[in-house]
């Protein structure tokens, strides 16, 4: 599903150039649930941003579902993001003046789906994450766990190939984190490819494979026995 070869990325901050990714080689098969680990500054977020086409690599190749991702202009990047990817952020990134239902419907709006259909579909995804009763609430009326579940529903709404989650439990307490992980595991069980960036060991062990990053290089890439989040709840 994802193939990355010799990926480099550096940032210029003032006069200093910071080489963040120093040649990443990495691939993900369909249906995998992978966690990318590393201390802060290891380059894990940068890698995810490049995977998510939110940022561009300096060197190397990236193929997503057989499509080479290169020389993107804004327009095509937007199309690919809408078609291939669903994002889950640490800070949820819901649009705060839109109801949960409208937030979930956003990717569908940008696909050009009609309102009625959009609402139905968004409602189905909200049901899936167990928030059907909260559909018309504003984000500020929801708890952190609920917000993240709305964000997951939104990421799923456009039926993307890959879900990319950047510290999805970073802003949540342990119990809520496990509930969210349970939801993510359930989605993975249905066959969705999911990448999670985290620095929490317990969360990483709830995935099927852990990729460890240090100083811009992969130092470890191992399959693990998945811990079901449900057993902790």
């Amino acid at each position: 599903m994802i193939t990355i070869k010799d990926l480099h990325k550096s940032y210029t901050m003032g006069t200093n150039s910071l080489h963040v990714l120093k040649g990443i080689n990495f691939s993900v098969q369909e249906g995998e649930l992978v966690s990318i680990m590393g201390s802060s500054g290891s380059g894990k977020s940068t890698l995810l941003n490049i995977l998510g086409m939110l940022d561009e690599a300096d060197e190397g190749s990236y193929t997503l579902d057989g499509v080479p991702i290169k020389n993107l202009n804004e327009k095509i990047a937007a199309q690919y993001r809408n078609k291939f990817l669903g994002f889950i952020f640490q800070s949820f990134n819901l649009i705060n003046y839109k109801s949960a239902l409208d937030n979930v419907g956003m990717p569908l709006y940008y696909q050009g789906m009609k309102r009625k259909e959009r609402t139905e579909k968004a409602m189905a995804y909200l049901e899936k994450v167990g928030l059907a009763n909260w559909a018309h609430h504003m984000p500020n009326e929801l708890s952190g766990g609920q917000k993240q579940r709305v964000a997951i529903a939104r990421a799923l709404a456009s039926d993307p190939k890959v879900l990319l989650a950047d510290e999805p439990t970073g802003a949540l307490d342990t119990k809520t984190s496990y509930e969210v992980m349970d939801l993510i595991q359930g989605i993975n069980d249905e066959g969705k490819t999911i990448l999670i960036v985290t620095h929490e060991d317990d969360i990483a062990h709830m995935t099927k494979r852990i990729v460890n990053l240090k100083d811009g290089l992969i130092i470890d890439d191992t399959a693990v026995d998945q811990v079901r989040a449900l057993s902790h709840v």
Partner: protein
Amino acid sequence: MFDLERWQEILETISKNKLRTFLTGLSVASGIFILVILLGFGQGMQNGISAQFQRDASSRISVYTGVTSKGYKGLNPGRYIEMTNEDYNYLIKKYEDDLEFKSSVYRIWSGTLNFGNESGSYRVEGVYPDYQFLENEDMVAGRYINYDDQEKKSKVLVIGNKVKLDLFNNQDPIGQQVQINGINFKVVGVYTDPGGEREETRVFVPLSTSQRVFGGADKVGNLGFTLKPKETFQKTLEQSVRFSSEIESFLKERHLIAPNDTSAIGINNTLEGTKRFYDLIGMIKTFFWVVGICTIIAGVVGVSNIMLIIVKERTKEIGIRKALGAQPLSIITMILHESIFVTAIAGFTGLILSMALLEVVGPNLDMDFIKNPSVNFKVAITTVFILILAGALAGFVPAWRAARIKPITALREE
């Protein structure tokens, strides 16, 4: 533009951000409001001043004579020119269709009036009945000189209010006999003049009578005319100026005066003075326009500023939208659409409010120089559309910037 989905999106955004929308709208609405009010009052001032001039016979053209200053065709300078009935009759016949009021005047400079034991020295003038309107005199009692008096060369007299006070005290002067330089005249009317007391120390007799009784023969001292107003002031003025110069050249030719002699024939055209007032009004109106347009520009700059702030404030939201698959064009249209929509609604609100104010206040406004302020609807509508266009332009730069925001930068923004 007619994409229902996008409209829903815009309306939702607007309704969820009421304060922001209100502030944007306020600067636009107040801009239009101020412009329309200014234009309305500019028009009001024009109406008011025009009305002032209508009250006076401001279009009067007076012709008087003097002494020649240049020799011409063998005649020496220093000749005193006198006009005659013939001149007058020729002119009123020639310009019959254009003239509104007309009169020639024969002046007896020092007339002594006696009534009983009272006496006084007044300016006595022989005039035609139209002279009342050239002088803007209103009758207090009795009547003015009429054509019958003129025909019969009656010895009748119209006196000013001041003359009445001097000679008659509290007696009713109508029907009384008064002596002018020893000759009996009957008082038929008393007039008042807006020019005040000085103008009311004059007495008027029929022109024909004055010429016969006071030895004027067929001489007249001066001529007074007003022309029928044309549909526009400009045309009236043009006609009046043309008329003045035609009279001048006619009289110069007839009385053998050098064409470049400026002292023999004098023509006083009050309409040219009026023109200066109209020029002044024109300048005031231009000034109002300039102020109004500056107000609009300030409004547009305001919209542009607010749009920039909106984009800044919505940076994160734009980042989220882009992460979810929004294309740059859809971001631009989103911002622009909102900006145009708000500007349009606010512009029309300002327009309606200001027009309503002019409608309500206008007719009730009773001031000397402001009358019925109103505004040309077409002009106002055009202004609103220009403002909407400007609003679109004002929104475009921020929208363009918004579209270029990188989603990753936007998402980092807290």
